[in-house]
């Protein structure tokens, strides 16, 4: 099986055949990867060099930590499937604007109601995270189509707060 792998800023062609022989950019490697009881912890011995790694799946890629360095790794074969799945689920015809929270937090204030007309720049909501207040403004004038959260609610990163039509 052939994979195109992006790790940090590098790209590699990886081939793992039926006998378990692994080639990286055509070069055969001696690789021994061992998982552990901790699902994020791995030991890799690569051509007699030893590495301790933390690996966790993260939004369709993998986040790897080793020796204090963090790098995100995407294995192309998997990603193609994921992208295909996303495309069919999205709704391309709508011109709505979704106001999302770029960070997790607590909704401190919702200043608008559904059906309200808002001006560009008007404050729509305030989200507090770790003692910091973040205001969300209307990127253009419009009508509040939906208010998805209530004051006091805990929101996750990228949660939709408000949709504007």
């Amino acid at each position, binding site marked *: 099986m052939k994979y195109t792998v992006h790790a940090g800023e590098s790209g590699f062609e990886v081939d793992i055949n039926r006998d*378990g022989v692994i080639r990286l950019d055509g070069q055969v490697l001696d690789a021994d990867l061992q998982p552990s009881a901790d699902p994020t912890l791995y030991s890799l011995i690569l051509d007699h060099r030893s590495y301790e790694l933390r690996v966790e799946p993260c939004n369709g890629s993998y986040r790897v930590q080793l020796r204090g360095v963090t790098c995100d790794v995407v294995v192309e074969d*998997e990603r193609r499937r994921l992208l295909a799945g996303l495309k069919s689920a999205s709704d391309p015809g709508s011109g709505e604007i979704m106001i999302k929270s770029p960070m*997790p937090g607590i909704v401190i204030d919702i200043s608008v109601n559904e059906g309200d007309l808002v001006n560009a720049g008007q404050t729509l909501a305030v989200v507090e995270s770790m003692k910091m207040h973040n205001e969300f403004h209307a990127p253009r004038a419009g009508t509040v189509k939906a208010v998805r959260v209530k004051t006091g609610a805990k929101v996750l990163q990228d949660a939709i707060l408000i949709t504007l039509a």
Partner: protein
Amino acid sequence: MLSLKKILVANRGEIACRIIRACNELGCATVAVYSEADRNQPHVRMADEAWPIGPSPARESYLCLDKLIDTARRSGADGVHPGYGFLAENADAAEAFESQGIVWIGPPVKAIRLMGDKLIARETVAAVGLPLVPGTGKSRAMTDDELTASASDIGFPLLVKAAAGGGGKGMRIIRAPGELGEGLRVARLEAQASFGDDRVYLERLITNARHVEIQILGDRHGNLIHLGERDCSIQRRHQKLIEECPSPAVDEALRERMGAAAVKAARSVGYYSAGTVEFVLDNKTRDFFFLEMNTRLQVEHTVTERVTGVDIVKEMLRVAAGESLRHRQEDIKLKGSTIECRILAEDPWNHFMPSIGVISSIASPSGPGVRVDTGVSAGSEITPYYDSLIAKLVVWDETREEAIIRSLQALREFQITGIKTTIPFFLQMLETPEFRSGNIHTKFVEDEFLLKRSRNEELEKVAAVAVSLIAHGRRGRATTLNSNASPGPGAWRLLGRRENTGTRL
């Protein structure tokens, strides 16, 4: 045996764990309190008793004085340790506990009150001779001529500031005497427009400043000593990121002068227990000026504990129980060098944005000279309700240079998954020539330091190999399971064997 028998720890996170340890060592029972968000945090498991105090937001739990007093009374606690933050510098809280006969493990109410008002604090310490940043003071209206006359005493560069001001309005930087006339005119105009008050005053601008603070310890019998300094110049938006002792900018003579000044400030308000007097230190002239006094235990007390050998939290408990200090000033010697890195749940690549989620794994470094104070464990949820401090990495070695090298080793060992942390920031900061040489100032992080996307091709290759094998393994597993409409025991056994033996290739 301590006369206090049961301590309510009115805090959470790493500092609650730190206080519980000290209480256990002194044979005091402990009472933890927790909000709804914190039921599964380590401080709850560590304490002898644990009492719920309400919903997750701090103002409905950890800041609710009546709930805390009620819990102290119902649990039979005879003392309360406020930690830092929350109610720690709240004079009314200290007074309320004491009026119920519950000992406040901290300074006297009067000291909290006097030092809590920044203007009164400045006047109080100035009266006993502490240096304030040179300036004309802002109390009375002064003419341009009077201001010009005092400018040469203050020195350049200086700031013209609006007496009624704030937020930088009506503020002008004056670099040379020739700029003063025009600067005063513009500042007065702006002050008048912004505040309806054109009074301005002058203050020296310290452009290359360090934050250096002195740890104070005192008892209820009038004994007051200092435990040397901490240099906290690596900060971002006034949030300290690294603290160290000794300061690379403080020699024995300066330490003695700053220490004596800090003791004098503490004595001026009748201080006992642990406290910290903060100074701004001019890198060029080595002049120091009083900033404020923190009337509580500080996050970075650990640094001082490591170089002096004094357990500050146990001393606070003993002092609260009426005992005398065990150390005299001449007993206090700084040994070696200690650096603390604050491991925060923040993303250094994205403007230190809070990073919230569940810690899927945490492996702390260890080894000689390495101390980790934390209040989280695997499975802990980092919520948006409280501050972002998840661990303090406190590293000691014989010299500063070695303490930096050992800190780098410990940071590389420190593995936390599930959230983003400031570990990558420290790995780079500790490698900069400026930090290595000690040539830093309080604006270094904001004005000069740039976090680099460090590239390491060897490690990228290693990561690529590891993830390819993992992804390949998962793919193989999925194929196996899909080929059986209902996964029979054969498929599961195969999967189990794969998990156990890993992927030997």
